[in-house]
C-alpha cells in the first residue's frame, strides 16, 4: 500500500472540504433523508466516483489510488463534518474492504465497479443474538449442489437497504462449520429486508435470509474460518467510524460556538458566561485530542504495527466518550433550539450517537482492552510509539 504524501493528503482534504461545503449541509441531508427512497443522493454518489474518492483505497488494478485507511478517513471525516448521507463507510471500508482482502481474482473485479460508483455494498455480520460480539454467528450456508443455501437473520445495518451486493457472514455447512463471508445480491430471492432509518436518519435494513441459493463463487476466497479477518475488517470499520465522528464533533463544537456568540440572554452573549466558555473549551480539547488519537491509530493500522488492534480499541474508547460529551453539550448549550429538527445540533447529536455505537461502543472496546491487558506483562501494555520504543 503506497501511503499518500502529506501534501497529497492535504490536497484530498481540501478538495473534499470544498465539495462538501458547497454541496452539503443540514438542510440537504434532511432533504435526502426524507424525500428520497434511498435516503441518500445517487447524484452525489456519481460525483464521488468522478472525484476518484470511491477508489481512494482500492488497488490501482481496480482503477483505485492504492491509498490506506488514513486516506479514506480524511474523506469520511469531511463527510461526517457535513452530515453526508451516502453509504461511503459500508461500501468502501466494509464491502470493498472485504473483497480486496479476501476475494479471488475473479471476485476482485467487483472493485472496479465500486470505484466506478456502480456497486453499493454493505456488511451484514451482527445477528440478533450477537450484540457487539464478533464471533457469534448462527447463520448457516448449507452446502447445496456446487453452491450454498443461506439461512439466517442479521441485525440492522446502515446502507444494507440499498446495497447491490451484501457481504454476509455464515457458518459453512452446519452450525459447527467455519465462518465464511458470502457475496449476496441485495435483490436475490429469499432475501427479505426490513428497511428503517437509523436514529440519525440514515437508512439501512435488517435482513432475513430464507434458503437463498448461492453459487460456489459467492464464497469470498476459500473455506477457511474468517473470524480473524472479520475482526480486522470490523477494526477498520471502527476506526473509519471514529474518523467520521471526529468530523462531526468538530462541526458540532463549531456550530455551538457560533450560536452562543450570537445568542443573548440577560443582556449578554451566552458565550460571555464563564461556565459556558469552559464547557466550550472542554469540547474543543476533546475534539483535538480525539483527532490526534484517531490519527495515531490510523498510522498504526496503515503501517501494520504490532498492537494496532489495541490502538484501535483505545481510539474508539476515546472517541466514544468525546462523542457523548460533545453531542450532548451541543444540544444542551443550544437550549430549546438544540432540541429542534431545524438546527444542526440535534442532527450532530444523533449522528454522534449512532457512530458511537457502531462497531461496539466505548465500554465494549474497554472490555477488549481489559481482556488483552490481563494477558500482557505489566510494562508492555502501551503499543504507541514511545512505550514501544
Amino acid at each position, binding site marked *: 500500500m503506497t501511503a499518500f504524501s502529506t501534501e497529497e493528503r492535504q490536497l484530498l482534504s481540501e478538495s473534499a472540504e470544498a465539495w462538501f461545503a458547497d454541496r452539503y449541509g443540514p438542510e440537504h441531508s434532511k432533504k435526502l433523508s426524507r424525500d428520497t427512497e434511498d435516503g441518500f443522493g445517487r447524484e452525489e454518489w456519481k460525483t464521488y466516483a468522478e472525484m476518484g474518492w470511491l477508489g481512494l483505497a482500492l488497488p490501482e488494478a481496480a482503477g483505485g489510488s492504492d491509498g490506506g485507511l488514513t486516506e479514506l478517513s480524511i474523506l469520511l471525516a469531511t463527510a461526517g463534518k457535513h452530515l453526508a448521507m451516502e453509504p461511503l463507510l459500508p461500501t468502501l471500508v466494509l464491502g470493498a474492504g472485504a473483497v480486496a482482502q479476501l476475494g479471488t481474482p475473479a471476485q476482485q473485479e467487483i472493485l472496479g465497479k465500486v470505484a466506478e460508483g456502480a456497486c453499493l455494498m454493505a456488511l451484514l455480520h451482527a445477528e440478533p443474538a450477537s450484540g457487539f460480539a464478533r464471533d457469534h454467528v448462527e447463520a448457516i450456508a448449507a452446502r447445496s449442489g456446487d453452491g450454498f443455501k443461506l439461512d439466517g437473520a442479521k441485525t440492522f445495518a446502515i446502507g444494507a437497504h440499498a446495497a447491490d451486493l451484501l457481504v454476509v457472514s455464515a457458518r459453512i455447512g452446519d452450525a459447527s462449520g467455519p465462518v465464511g463471508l458470502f457475496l449476496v445480491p441485495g435483490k436475490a430471492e429469499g432475501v427479505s429486508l426490513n428497511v428503517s*432509518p437509523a436514529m440519525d436518519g440514515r437508512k439501512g435494513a435488517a435482513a432475513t435470509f430464507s434458503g437463498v441459493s448461492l453459487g460456489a463463487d459467492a464464497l469470498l476466497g476459500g473455506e477457511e474460518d474468517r473470524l480473524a479477518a472479520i475482526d480486522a475488517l470490523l477494526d477498520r470499520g471502527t476506526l473509519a467510524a471514529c474518523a467520521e465522528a471526529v468530523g462531526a464533533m468538530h462541526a458540532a463544537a463549531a456550530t455551538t460556538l457560533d450560536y452562543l456568540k450570537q445568542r443573548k440572554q*440577560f443582556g449578554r452573549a451566552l458565550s460571555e458566561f464563564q461556565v459556558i466558555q469552559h464547557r466550550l473549551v472542554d469540547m474543543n480539547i476533546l475534539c483535538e485530542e480525539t483527532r490526534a488519537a484517531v490519527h495515531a491509530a490510523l498510522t498504526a493500522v496503515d503501517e501494520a504495527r504490532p498492537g494496532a488492534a489495541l490502538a484501535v480499541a483505545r481510539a474508539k474508547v476515546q472517541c466514544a466518550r468525546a462523542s457523548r460529551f460533545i453531542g450532548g453539550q451541543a444540544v444542551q448549550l443550544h437550549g430549546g433550539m438544540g432540541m429542534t429538527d431545524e438546527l444542526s445540533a440535534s442532527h450532530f447529536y444523533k449522528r454522534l450517537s449512532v457512530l458511537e455505537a457502531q462497531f461496539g461502543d466505548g465500554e465494549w472496546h474497554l472490555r477488549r482492552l481489559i481482556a488483552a491487558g490481563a494477558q500482557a506483562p505489566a510494562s508492555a501494555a502501551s503499543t504507541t510509539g514511545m512505550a514501544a520504543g
Partner: protein
Amino acid sequence: MFINALARDPSLESFRQEVRDFCAARIGPELRKKLDLGQHLTKEEYDGWLQALGEKGWLGGNWPREAGGQGWSAEEAAIFREETGRAGAPWLVPFGVTMVGPVIYTFGTPEQKAQHLPGILKNTTWWCQGYSEPGSGSDLASLRTRAVKGVDDDGAHYRVTGQKIWTTLAHWADWCFCLVRTDPEAKPQKGISFLLIDMKSPGITVRPIITLDMGHHVNEVFFDDVRVPAENLIGEENKGWDYAKFLLANERVGVAELGSMVRYLDQLKGVLAKTMEGGKPLSESPEFQRRVAELEVQFATLEALVADQHAAHQSAADQPSLIGAAALKIRGSELQQAILQAMTDALARHGLAYQADALMAGWNGELMGPAEMAGILAEHLHRRAATIYGGSSEIQRNIIAKGALGL
C-alpha cells in the same frame, strides 16, 4: 444535622395501595400496550385517563378542599405521583391542574374560579403555557409579547401581539395562560401581566415544532392583535411576575419524578434481560451490572433527598424551597437521562434503527429488537430536554449560587 427526615406515616400505605389498584383497574389492556410500547397517545386516550382521575377526585387531589380538591398532604401528593409514575400511567398533563389551577384558585376572581376550575378538575378543558418567547430562553423577564388595553372599547379588551415558543400541546389546548408585557417602560419584571386567553380567539396561529425525536410535542404560537377580554386578567395588571413565580414553585413540586424513575429502572432491567451479546443476555454483562448498581445508588440518594426536603418543609409552607427544588431538578433530570442512556446503549446492539413510525397508532410493520425499543429511543431523545426545560441545569445552579450560597 441529620434531623430533617422523618419516618413515613404507615397509614399512608393503604392510600398507596389504593392508587396502585386504581391504576391496575383503570388502565385497560389496549392503553396498557400503547404505554408499554411508548407509543403516542391520542387526546381522547389522555382524556379517558385524566377524566377518570377527575371523577375520583384525584386529579386535583392536592388542591385545598375549598377549591374542590382533597387537601392532600405533601406525602399523599408524593405517593400519588410516585405510584402513577411506577404504573406507567399516562402523563399527568400539568398545565391545568398543576400550573394554572392553583394560580386561579389563589389569585383569581370568583368568576374566573367558577369558569375555569371545574373544567380543570375534570380535565374537560385543556390548557397550555404561554411563557417562553424566541430569544427569551431562561431569561423569562425579557419577554416582548405586548398586551395593550383597547381605547376603542373603553379598555374592555386587551389586544395581544407577539410570539410564544416551546408551547407544549398548544395544538390541543382550549386555553392558554400567558405572560404578556403591559408596561414596556417598567423594569423587565415589573411590567408583566398574567392573562388567560381562549385559543379559539381570532388571530392565534399554532405552528408545530418538530423535535429531534421526530415528534410533535411543542409549538410556536403567534398572537396577531388578538382580543382578550379584560376580565381574563389574573390579579393586578403588571403583577404577573409574582403569579409566575408562584406557579414556578408549584411546577417544581415532584420535579424529581421518582415514580417514573422506578419504572425506567425496571424497563432497563427488562431490556438487559432481552438483549443478547455473544448469545448471553446483557444482564450478565459486568459493565451493565455495574451501571445498574450505580444508577440505583443515584436513585436511592435522590429518593433520600426528596424525603429530606419533604421533612424539612413539612411544618413550613406548602411549597418546597426553590433551592431544594433546584437541586432536585438537576439530579432528577440527570438521572432520567442516565437511565435512558443506559437503555439506549443496550439497545444499540440492534443497530440503532429508529422506527419512529411505529409509535403512531395503527402502524403495523415489523418491529426490530425488543418491542419497546422505538418508544425508549424516542423517550431518550425527547428527554434530552429534561436538563433544558423548566430552567436549564445551568440556570438551576445560578439559582442555588445566589439563593443558598449568597453569591
